[in-house]
């Protein structure tokens, strides 16, 4: 028995094995599947926001409809992707409930308690909102520089075609689609679907060539660039995920901190109160006022009249910025050059003295 590195990149395997049927529906562009996956490079480059929204909307709808139905039946086809996608349900429901807990009962309270409770509730609601926004968008602070510098798009999406096992109530419509990311797993990145994609170039290894060039890995010799860059991509992938995760929770904490500032007590989300108290007549005025309060709150977060609060704010913000910068530093520069990327990369993966598992 011999162990063969790089076995999955071979020609005959690619051309002969494909699980997916390449559909050709009228008016729709043909989605070119490699194996079971269609890499959405073109859409991502042309309309990244639209694509993101489309995927999120699809996942959201399914998380509340199709997947719970399947899950509650205990379907044999239920999988981990569906379980994870359903994670949106507690995330959204939890946020809504958290807002409700602090706001719902306020309407029964008398004037003074009502105002007090509403002010607090409003800040809590903003806290929930800012937590979510800060957590989502702060990841980009680390992911985007990695994409620009190394060309590694950690969120590169692909559409996966699944053929389900026939079940009691479903014997015909057995093809389902899921939206995954090529790099969602660091153990098993979908290396296979990155080969031979016209969007990257004509060469079979075009994608890996591009990344090898961007990463300055022995650009003179691009033969089997895939073997050279894969360990490097994996390394950067892990670092990006680590730092973007930690930083995102810290930024979320900053978001909550900003929401808890006093200036937000001087704005109301109840239309009648806004009209009466602030003379707000149209949404634009509200947005302006909100923007003003937001800026004031950001200032108050780091420059509060309460000294210890200001210091705590600065420490929190400093930590978030610090972790983000450390993340950028670690992901953008190569500190492991000697540890076997370049030519030695693939060799170093195999330690001859150890026993190997073949699966």
């Amino acid at each position, binding site marked *: *028995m*011999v*162990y*063969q*590195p*790089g*076995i999955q*990149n*071979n*020609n*005959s395997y690619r051309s002969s094995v494909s699980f997916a049927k390449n559909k050709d529906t009228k008016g729709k562009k043909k989605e070119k599947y490699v194996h079971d996956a269609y890499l959405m490079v073109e859409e991502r480059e042309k309309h990244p926001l639209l694509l993101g929204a489309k995927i999120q909307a699809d996942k959201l709808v399914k998380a509340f409809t199709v997947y719970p139905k399947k*899950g*509650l*039946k*205990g*379907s044999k086809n*239920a*999988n*981990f992707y569906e*379980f994870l996608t359903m*994670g949106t349900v*507690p*995330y959204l429901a*939890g946020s809504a*409930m958290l807002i*409700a*807990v602090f706001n*719902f*009962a306020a309407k029964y*309270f008398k004037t003074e*308690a009502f105002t007090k409770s509403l002010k607090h509730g409003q800040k809590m609601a903003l806290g929930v909102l800012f937590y979510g926004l800060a957590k989502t968008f702060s990841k980009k602070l680390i992911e985007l520089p990695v994409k620009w510098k190394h060309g590694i798009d950690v969120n590169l999406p692909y559409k996966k075609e699944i053929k389900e096992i026939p079940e*009691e109530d479903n014997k015909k419509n057995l093809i389902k689609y899921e939206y995954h990311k090529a790099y969602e797993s*660091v*153990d098993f990145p979908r290396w296979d679907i990155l080969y031979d994609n016209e969007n990257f170039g004509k060469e079979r290894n075009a994608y890996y060539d591009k990344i090898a060039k961007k990463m300055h890995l022995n650009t003179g010799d691009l033969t089997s660039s895939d073997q050279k860059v894969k360990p490097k991509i*994996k390394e*950067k992938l*892990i*670092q990006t*995920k*680590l*730092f973007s995760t*930690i930083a995102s*929770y810290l930024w*979320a*904490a900053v978001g909550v*901190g900003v929401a*808890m500032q006093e200036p937000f007590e001087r704005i109301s989300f109840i239309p009648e109160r806004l009209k009466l108290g602030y003379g707000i007549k149209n949404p634009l005025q509200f947005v302006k006022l909100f923007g003003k309060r937001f800026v004031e709150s950001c200032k108050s977060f780091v420059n509060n009249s*309460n000294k*210890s609060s200001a210091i*705590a704010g600065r420490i929190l913000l400093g*930590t978030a910025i610090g972790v983000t910068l450390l993340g950028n530093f670690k992901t953008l520069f190569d*500190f*492991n050059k000697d540890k076997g990327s370049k030519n030695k990369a*693939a*060799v170093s993966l*195999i330690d001859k003295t150890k*026993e*190997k*598992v*073949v699966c």
Partner: protein
Amino acid sequence: MSNLLDAYQSHQNINNPSPLYKHTYTINTEGKVKPLEDKGKLLPSRIFGSPIEYAKDIKKDIVNIGRAANGQANDHELGRINDIALKLGSLAIASYLFVKNPLKLSKSMEFVGMGTFLGSMALWPKIALQAPIKARTGVDIHQKYIDSEGRKKMLFLDPQYDLTDLYSREDLDRMGRKLKVSKNLPDRDNFIKQRAKKTAVQANTLWMLSAGFASPVMSALACNALETPINEALEKSALKTTEKALKQGKPAGIINTWINKFRMASKEKALMKFLEQNAENEVTDVMLGRIANEFLPNANSFDFANTVKSSLKEITKNAQKTLPVDFESVSNILKDLVPQNFISSLSDKEKNYIVKLIAEGNSKKASDRLVALLTDAEDLNRTQSQQILKEIKHKLSDEFKPQKVTLGKISNKIKSLNELLKDFSSDKKLVDDYISARVGDKSGTYIANHWGRACKKLFKALKFSEKDLMELQNGNMQVFFEKLKALSESKDQNTVDSLLKDLLNLMDDYEAKTGTDFLDTVKKGMRKAGRNTFENIKDDDFKTLSDKIFNNRASQIIKKFCEDKKIDNSIINNLLKEFETKVDADDIQGALKLLEETPLIKDQENKFGKEIINEIKQALNASKSGTVENTVTLMAAERALGAKASLYRLIQTLDVLNPANKSKLDDKIRVAFKNIKNSEADTETVNRLSEIIKKILMEATPTDYVEKFTTSNFNITLDEYRIISNVLFDKADDVILLTKPQGGKEALKGFNQYLSELKTKVWDWTNYMTPELKKRVTEDNAATNGMNAVERSNLIGKTVKDYMKETAEKMYNSRKWLKTFGIAMAVILGVTLVAGLFVGRKSKIEKELEENKQNG
């Protein structure tokens, strides 16, 4: 395999192979490649994991974060890091809000909130799904296993990754029995495994659907339940630590010491910077105000900054050298402006005064004085005097320019003042904390919680419904009367009685915690703080400040007297020590007596003369008023009195309103009526007076307690006023219409004292109530009764109506909230539990399949 390899080879450029493949095209593993041994096993399932395992996992995770930073990690490790980051983020939020929140309870609740939220997220699936489903089907949906790499994972996380092989024979049998899979079914094990997997998929879906609704509510309810015990615990700990800190003379705990030091250091830094930046600038009033308010330790006290500012002013004044002025130079300047005979007509006293003013740099005031005298002497009209004033002012200020004092000149004095105040304010802070923990004007203090405890007793005894609370918070007291009436009519005589006893017992504790001992400790603490800092201050510049904070003039007089008489130092010191001990104990008479009878001095016939004793007496009396020590003690006493009076008023009201006591009240009114009017009262008068009494107890407010009486609200005569006063403010034993209240002995003493003070200080208005003086009682003449408005207000306390209203509102709000979310929680739990009953059931097809298999 060989075909694939061939194809691979043909794809490569064989003639020019990559250096990578030159020697590694194939690897000879010499037969070592073989599947690894299967080391995966199930972990024992527990609701709570062991703390040791938990600690080990955390250690592993920390190592993993380090590895991941260098690009080495797997999906499992990254997933665990995500969980840790989530917790770290929550901790960051809680820590930030902990610092931001001013109140101890809210501070603690931030961490409690975080803990309960994370706890609810973990606990919800366990109690609502895992435990009931395991009990019913035998399937542990959160069964964990450890894989060959030592990673702990959930068995059913990915339904497509079948790990059911890890189940043992016993596990399968147990599940089979509970899932009612017939024993002789062919391929039974597989069937059970499929059912287990199905159960897990269903339960996990239910988990995802329910957790979002359940966790926040569960966490909020837990916080709500924990708030009261935490508050009580914080109160107890604050009472204990502040007392200990005051006794030991240093703040309790390293963190507090560190925070104090940090605060002082940052203020000091700002002061030094300010002094440096403004060293060349002339000292102004605004500048001194800023230094006093912003940079110097303000000892956390009301109006303290003003005291410090006046001290700074004094320092500035002392630094300003007087100008060399004599009257001749002044008259030289004036001779062209005013008639010569006017100058010569000025008396010596006037001349000296004007010279003194100019020498102090106050030539404006000197000009004013001169022109005033001139106007009188020469009969000048307004325009003339204005004109001449302008000229004189101009000339004088031109000639005698006051010397400027730069900040740099007094900066050393300010620095030493800073040092003094640092010492004093850290000592005083201990006293402040001691007071604050007991009677501070914020929630969570002893006084605030005590109030809450009394409320709870009252509202629990009277059993108010939600509707009643709604009425009460709208100020409708009828509900309260009806409750009391219903109680007495239901022959439940004990309820109000035992409520009163409970309240009196509570007041016992109150008297013990905020009574004379408390005020004594405050006074002693303040005296100690002043003595520590200012006793040995000799610098005259700090004299005013020293006198304001710590007045030891009496001791100084004694010391000087003894030193003049050349008495031995050790004798002086002993005498002073004894004297000060008596003064500290407020035993002024004893202290004076001690001086008069000091034998050593007597023997030498050097005994204190009457004059010096009088001087010492005056100094002692002066030290009693207006010092920081007295202000602090007075404020503490006022705070304690306010709450005490409110609660005693509530007790009195409950007692008088108790329908069981109606006849006793009427009797008392009759007796008082007879004593004052010398005639029998008719029923109508008695009823009217008793109604007025009830109204006064319920509604009369501190500011117009007396005033209301004279206005149309209560149309009563002076005699009737006296009757009511007698009925309400006699001794407690009489006023408390209960026969003999058990317990609350200290409280009864306090109550008696309260009533007698109320009678003499608030109700003793007979002089003002005579028909000849039919004027309204105003704040001014109220003050002449020996009490100012604040003191009177404190003594009268809060009206029972306000008390009930506020409490009803709070109670209504918290009940409404609890009810709303209690129901929500019950519904969510109920739905999840019911849905859980359908988890793991056989579907129709599965049933058929089972039957078919069984039948072969």
